[in-house]
């Protein structure tokens, strides 16, 4: 990848433990993303995914190394990087409009009330919450709360969005709808997105690039899997694509076995040149092959993207 919009360069995170022993969550982590790319990080709990995201957001500082976004090393939080929190983190004493307007007025401090309101309203409409502007978060369902979280993140027109398992607290149906919304919005606005997830199908549907991390402590970025599925994929017939199962099996195999044994199996792993796995391309060994396709893939017939 030549265009490194985001470049994580050799970061480490260590915590002082009991008796002068330092615990290393991860070290020498290198990772880069292009502008407009959607990346998902998959790994078991404790591998430091959330720490990486917090460092990208500026909420946490790395013990070593640097993060460069758009050509500049980051220090602290920035309005260029919006975070969608797992627990939505809405302010319960503010209405939907108030929550979004809080973000808008934080970014554009000189704007008058009417302008802030109009801008916030546009993003509330974008996530499909028109009519609920004056409700408080306690009056909303879990999915609606997370929509407000998305509207709040988008309203400051960030250069990138950081999402920490944003849909893990939602039921399957709501999660599906919100995945569609996020994908639509990211494609429409060309947003760069970095997302942590436990859900393999979510990663396959949303991500252009999937980062696989081994188990912590001492976690490393093992592989970067490029998503071979077409860009106009739809959620409902994703599993009919001939490469879907190969991709899915590769990730599941990694999570089930290779995330534990990776350090022993690949002693010459170079964290600066993480292998890029391109499933379906000849000459590359993959952990498992897919099943025979049961139906021919027909691009453009996806209901998920017709809107």
């Amino acid at each position, binding site marked *: 990848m030549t265009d490194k919009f985001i470049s994580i360069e050799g970061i480490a995170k260590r915590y002082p433990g009991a008796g002068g022993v330092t615990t290393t969550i991860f070290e020498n982590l290198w990772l880069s993303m292009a502008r407009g790319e959607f990346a998902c990080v998959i790994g078991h709990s404790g591998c430091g995914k959330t720490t990486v995201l917090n460092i990208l957001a500026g909420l946490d500082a790395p013990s070593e190394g640097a993060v460069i976004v758009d050509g500049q090393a980051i220090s602290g*939080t920035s309005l260029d*990087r919006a975070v969608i*929190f797992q*627990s939505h983190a809405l*302010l319960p*004493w503010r209405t939907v409009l108030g929550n979004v307007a809080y973000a808008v007025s*934080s970014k554009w401090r000189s704007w008058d009330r009417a302008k802030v309101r109009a801008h916030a309203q546009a993003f509330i409409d974008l996530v499909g919450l028109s009519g609920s502007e004056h409700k408080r978060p*306690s009056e909303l369902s879990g999915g609606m709360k997370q929509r407000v979280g998305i509207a709040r993140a988008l309203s400051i027109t960030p250069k990138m969005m950081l999402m920490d398992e944003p849909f893990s607290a939602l039921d399957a149906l709501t999660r599906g709808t919100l995945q569609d919304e996020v994908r639509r919005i990211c494609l429409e606005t060309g947003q760069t997105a970095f997302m942590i997830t436990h859900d393999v199908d979510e990663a396959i549907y949303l991500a252009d690039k999937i980062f696989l991390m081994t188990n912590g402590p001492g976690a490393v970025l093992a592989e970067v899997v490029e998503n071979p599925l077409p860009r106009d994929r739809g959620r409902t017939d994703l599993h009919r694509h001939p490469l879907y199962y190969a991709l899915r099996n590769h990730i599941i195999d990694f999570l089930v076995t290779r995330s534990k044994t990776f350090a022993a199996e690949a002693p010459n792993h170079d964290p600066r040149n993480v292998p890029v796995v391109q499933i379906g391309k000849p000459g590359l060994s993959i952990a498992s092959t897919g099943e025979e396709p049961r139906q021919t893939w027909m691009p453009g017939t996806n209901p998920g993207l017709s809107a």
Partner: protein
Amino acid sequence: MTSSLRLRAGLVSIVLLAAFLGIWHLATRSTAPVTTMSPEYAKLMGLTATQGKSAMPGPLDVGAKLWEHLKRPFYDNGPNDKGLGIQLAYSIARVGTGYLLAVLVAIPLGFLIGMSPLLSKALDPFIQVLKPISPLAWMPLALYTIKDSSVSAIFVIFICSIWPMLLNTVFGVATVRKEWINVARTLEVGTVRRAFTVILPAAAPTILTGMRISIGIAWLVIVAAEMLVGGTGIGYFVWNEWNNLSITNVIIAILLIGIVGMLLDQILARFTRMVTFPE
């Protein structure tokens, strides 16, 4: 369902009140036969001697006296004979002044301590020692330094209401949900704006709970403080009527102290509800 529960509970309350008043009435009514004595001596001794009436007033005596007070709450016949309204107003004014001063000190100070782990640790031993001191123990020191009994009473209210507010503010500010702070941080909100737009609303229910505890304590303490400093106020009234041996007035004062205390608590409870938002 709930309305019928409320109705039944109300009925039980009325029955309990009626039973209490009935027993009170029966226990204090005249029982002994009329003893014969010279009419002048009987007039001097009153019903207690002539009809065996209990020295404790019955509910009817208290009711009649209360009605008298309610008809003229604000009369002023000199230092030892003022209407109950005036006495209560003095007490409420003292509580209000001391309490407001405590709010002005405790909430900003609690905010600072809550935001700073250093201050929090450094001031903790002082707070822990000062908090359990009975507010009345400060009275001699206050009288000696301030040299004004009325101001000393206000100081005692101040010192007793400051601790619950201070500790609750510290706790509320220090335990604001990390995510809300992170929201403000990712939006690059400055410290002052963050304090007013995130920390204050998030800590408000805890702060108001501390204020509610404080007003309760302040109202408890004012009665005792006024008994000591004398002059005016409902506490002084109770002690003065005890010296006059008017048990009826003492009972009326007790009832009014309870009612005013309940009203003060309800006002703070309402404020607490106004700033509490479910998630």
